[in-house]
């Protein structure tokens, strides 16, 4: 096992700058807050700019299939910036998780869908509950004569999806057009309104087989999701820290900047350390996924077990240290708190990843 590259390359930094510029222009906090209460929770204009404009939806797709043939390292940088802006786009769900599932299938049907997803004009969603981690059990639906019947809940970004990748009880993974007869996508009132979950009902929906063995495809998809979610958590936590520090330098009480009180300085310094650790863990996980390292399972489990509580802690500190303003609907801190808390469940909790680690590094339970 060669040493992982934990730095950002110059190209990765350039990519970050481009994505950040775009988000500064198109994704400000008041706009995100307003959108959460509209009937279109996702931002189609931003999605078009990211995918059509910059080709980012196809980073993980080989060039032969119309993608960019890049790696998880570049994707991690994009995801980190999207997290920093709590951007309401189905990037992680479509360009990472659904794409990874399709990459594992190897069928012509899957290849065709990969090309469609890479363009961004088609959005995909894996119909596995967002709470399922790699290796965890997940629900499936009944397959009969080329159609599906059943109900799945907690499917992230399903309301934005054009195509659903659905595991069936016969062991196969099927593609179903979200707009087809017999498919109903019902939004669930979600804790995180920027990545809403939905109930999906299949009542004789026509389905195309992607692979007869869904298990490895789902596992691969969820592992990539968990590993790259760490970069999103890094972006969220870094925003919360940076914004809170900025505010506390400005906010005065007792005739002093509030950020000069040692009780608060120590809390922020401790949070900074956690963010620094998250950055190292996120880079390690992205690099392990990119190189196909034998250490990838450990790298992902370590990173997710560490980063999930850090993002929540950062967001909770942001709310508390902003005082009253942090509790308002108007201030964006709640967007970060809700995303961070939902992320702490997404693709397996920290506890689930620690449990996985127990087996991976031979620290067995009693």
């Amino acid at each position, binding site marked *: 096992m060669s*040493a*992982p*590259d*934990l*730095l950002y390359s110059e190209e990765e930094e350039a990519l970050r700058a481009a994505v950040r510029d775009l988000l500064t222009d198109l994704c400000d906090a008041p706009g995100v807050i307003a959108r959460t209460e509209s009937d279109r929770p996702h931002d189609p204009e931003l999605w078009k700019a990211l995918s059509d404009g910059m080709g980012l939806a196809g980073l993980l797709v080989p060039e032969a299939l119309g993608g960019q043939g890049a790696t998880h390292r570049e994707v991690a940088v994009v995801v980190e910036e999207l997290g920093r802006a709590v951007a309401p786009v189905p990037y992680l769900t479509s360009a990472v998780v659904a794409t990874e599932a399709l990459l594992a299938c190897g069928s012509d049907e899957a290849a065709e869908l990969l090309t469609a997803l890479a363009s961004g004009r088609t959005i995909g969603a894996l119909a596995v509950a967002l709470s399922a981690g790699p290796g965890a059990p997940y629900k499936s639906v009944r397959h009969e004569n080329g159609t599906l019947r059943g109900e799945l809940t907690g499917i992230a970004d399903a309301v934005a999806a054009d195509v659903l990748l659905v595991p069936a009880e016969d062991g196969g993974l099927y593609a179903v057009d979200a707009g087809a007869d017999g498919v109903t996508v019902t939004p669930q009132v979600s804790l995180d309104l920027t990545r809403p979950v939905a109930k999906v009902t299949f009542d004789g929906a026509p389905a195309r087989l992607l692979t007869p063995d869904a298990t490895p495809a789902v596992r691969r998809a969820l592992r990539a999701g968990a590993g790259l979610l760490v970069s999103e958590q890094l972006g969220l936590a870094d925003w919360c820290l940076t914004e809170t*520090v900025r505010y*506390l*330098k400005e906010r005065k009480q007792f005739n*002093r*900047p509030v*950020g*000069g009180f*040692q009780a608060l*300085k*120590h809390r*922020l*310094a*401790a949070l*900074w*350390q956690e963010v*620094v*650790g*998250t*950055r*190292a*863990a996120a*880079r*390690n996980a992205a690099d392990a996924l990119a190189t196909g390292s034998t250490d990838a399972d450990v790298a992902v489990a*370590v*990173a997710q*077990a*560490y980063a999930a509580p850090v993002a929540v802690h950062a967001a909770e500190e942001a709310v508390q240290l902003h005082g009253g303003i942090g509790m308002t609907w108007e201030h964006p801190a709640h967007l970060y708190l809700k995303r961070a808390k939902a992320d702490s469940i997404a693709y397996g909790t920290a*506890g689930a990843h*620690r*449990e996985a*680690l*127990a087996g991976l*590094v*031979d*620290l*067995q*339970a*009693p």
Partner: protein
Amino acid sequence: MSAAASKGATPDAAELRSRTQELLAAHPVAGTDRVDFLKARFDAGLAWVHYPVGLGGLGAPRSLQAVVDAELEAAGAPDNDPRRIGIGLGMAAPTILGFGTEEQKSRFLRPLWVGEEVWCQLFSEPGAGSDLAALGTRAVRDGDDWVVNGQKVWTSSAHLARWAILIARTDPDAPKHRGITYFICDMTDPGVEVRPLRQITGEAEFNEVFLTDVRIPDAHRLGEVGDGWRVAQTTLMNERVSIGGMRIPREGGMIGPVSKTWRERPDLRTHDLHQRLLTLWVEAEVARLTGERLRQQLVAGQPGPEGSGMKLAFARLNQEISGLEVELLGEEGLLYEDWTMRRPELVDFTGRDAGYRYLRSKGNSIEGGTSEVLLNIVAERVLGLPSEPRTDKDVAWKDLAR
């Protein structure tokens, strides 16, 4: 001397490799006395290649030291036992190099590096710990000498040391940071008394040093009179550089022994301990990755502020992990290997038994800067938050509350 060096060009890796081979050819490892070999290595400029020519170096980039070390290690050459002389190498030497006179540099650096003369550090005092600049040890000018009186504490290697780096107050009327001068103190002076300082582990790694009418020639002053605080910053900065620069394998630190015990002793396992162990294992692995990332940044020439946090994480994790280990051991955790008063030459935080590790790690958040002070440093220098209100900066030292 080869053509490259005589022209004054900076030696590259190939040049250093060939010079190392020349050294090995002229002083075969098998037939050469250890100290003689080290002296020859120093004289060849291969001791610390980033030091100047004539002072054990060649003015080469510091990163190329690894090239020399690898060649010498492959040849089985002796080293200068750096752990035994860490204070000399890590703190005294860079300060002498930065502020010493030519006479001081040529007198002190060679025996320091070779290990013939051990160094210790006389900085902390009972009344000046985190607030080091408040120190009260007095140095009074008397002809060509200074006469020093006071008490220093937490001095490792004082009982082995030939020399000490010392800071003392030379002007009590100046504000505290401005009345300090930096000296080289002869530890064989009859006014120097070293007493072991027994600590909670039962042993004495450190000493108290009592200075009574110790005479230091003015020629052993480092830097200007009254400029000692600035000189000491060089020493302390180098102390922080030496922490956290090493590459460690997974489970390389305090998490190693407890993980081993967990694997070997299924009888000790409980669900509660399992959850806590896994949480700490993850944190230890992330701390390791953070250190590795910092190292990669340094190698790439992009040092970040991340180093400031490394010691904080290291201290907290050592304490929590060793505490968990004692608890894991159950009835055996009620025992302690040995309370006998000893004076260890080398200290291994992860050595001895779990009880020792638990007790010794309590010092990790105190020595070399308390965690509380380090949190202030991160908050102020990294995050740019306002500094603590100060009432002591412009007051004469003699008028400060004590």
